[in-house]
């Protein structure tokens, strides 16, 4: 997309990322851009139930979580990821973290709308391959 797409492409290639997002446009944008960077997208999941099912199945290195999924909070998904030691970050439209469980409020967050370059930085930093 931009010049920094080339540099560091290797570190993202083949990385498997779970996308949990209920807005189709945002989900398909995330999927498209992650694939462009060489990642493999798991999902996207649009509900908490679907996301939990995908987490159960495993097979990914990191996750990007929307906070509000059709009126439900993605807290349980985040908790499951924490329990399994899978890195993740939130991508949220809320300015205030008050809707998240206490323990998850200080987790890393990107705020919508987000630029591709910011997203890329977060994926590189936070969703490291293990």
């Amino acid at each position: 997309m931009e010049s920094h797409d080339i540099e560091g492409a290797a570190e993202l290639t083949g990385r498997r990322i779970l996308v949990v997002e209920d807005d189709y446009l945002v989900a398909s944008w995330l999927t498209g851009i992650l694939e462009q960077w060489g990642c493999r997208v798991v999902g996207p999941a649009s509900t908490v139930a679907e996301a939990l099912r995908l987490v159960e199945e495993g097979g990914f290195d990191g996750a990007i979580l929307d906070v509000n999924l059709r009126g439900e909070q993605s807290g349980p998904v985040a908790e499951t990821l924490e329990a399994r030691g899978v890195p993740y970050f939130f991508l949220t439209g809320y300015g205030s973290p008050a809707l998240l469980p206490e323990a998850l409020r200080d987790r890393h967050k990107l705020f919508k709308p987000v630029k591709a370059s910011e997203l890329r930085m977060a994926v590189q930093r936070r969703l490291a391959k293990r």
Partner: protein
Amino acid sequence: MSETTRAGPRRSTGISEDWRRSAKRSEAIARAMFAVAVAALLVSAATAVWASARISEAIELVRQSERMTDALEAILARVADAETGHRGYLLTGEERFLEPYHEGLAQADAARREAEALIYEPGRRSLLEDLEAAVDAKIEHMQGTVEIARGGDMDGAIERVRSGEGMRLMTRVRDAAAAMRVDARALLTKRAQELERRSGAALALSVALHALLLAFIVGAFLSFRRMRAIRARLEDRQSLMVQELNHRVRNNLAAMLAIAEHSMHSPGVEGDEKRAACRETMERFLDAFSGRVRAMGVVHTMLSDRKWDDVDLRELVERILEPYRSDGERCVEVSGPPVRTPARAAGPLGATLHELATNAVKHGALRPNRGGDVSVRWRVEPNPGGPDKLHLEWKEHRRNGTLEAPERQGLGTDLILNLTAYELGGKTDLQFEPDGVRCVLEAPLEG
């Protein structure tokens, strides 16, 4: 759009924080007042029980005092009867006069026993003993006189009466009885005064408690009124904030369009030579972009007008398709029963309809000059064990030429195919039939 439109502001800050604190304070005060009121009620109930016990006691005292007076009168009367009897015997020498004498003595004895039983304070016993001693002395004197008379010495007996000793003894009996009556009355008076004092205190306590209760009721009422006022103000403020937010969302959508347009025309974006070559592409981009943003705006306006409650499907369809219906040449027919569309479904359905319409304008029945008709029809299908299902059909009828499926799939088609399924758990069927596109949307009607 999804998160901001779905959840209204949940916390307010600033001024409303003061109101919240004030409401909390009122609540604390009301709670404390309630606790004190309950305590006051309990004390008041205990006082009532105590007062009633004291009143029973007082009634018992009065009754006892009356019985004591009766007993004293009975003793006097019976002793007097006995005296009358023994005097009659002395005057006539007839034995039958001794009958009331014996009767009187027996009854006086019974009255004495009753008086003894009524003595409730050890200190009063000495008074009764005085009376009894006087009665005994009198009876002994009468018995002595009767003995002498029976022994035949009638004159000696009469002489004994004449000596005045009998009269003196009778006076002693009367005096002792009177002393006892006076004492009983004094005791009663004392007890009554004591009771009056105590019941006065109880009354004062009761009045104070009731005043306290009344104050609390007034306080609770005021605090209730205050809380209601605060709630009304908070609600006003919240509704104002929601209005402000809606207004801002609309303004931001308008600003987004303006930013897109300005950015496009900015020299930094297009170099002068490339300007002409890019122009057409950029115009197409801006047209597609602003159309989508406009559709978002339409849905947002409808939802905010309805305060995020259900919207009417016909209105949604008509408002989304409005730019394509004003042209007299083209015809969009809209038909279906009234359907309350859940707020959550309005966005995806509106966006899908918008994409269908723009595709029809570009390639299908809504093309200028060579167009045709579009019919949008819907029905609601009951779904046992789940929410009702909306079944909406978009059908284009071209006036000329046949339609072929497009070679590549743009964002519009992507949205038509996936938006409803992904966001609503629905289903889309898109067919490129020779006389025009046919698209069937199915979506659950749940909130």
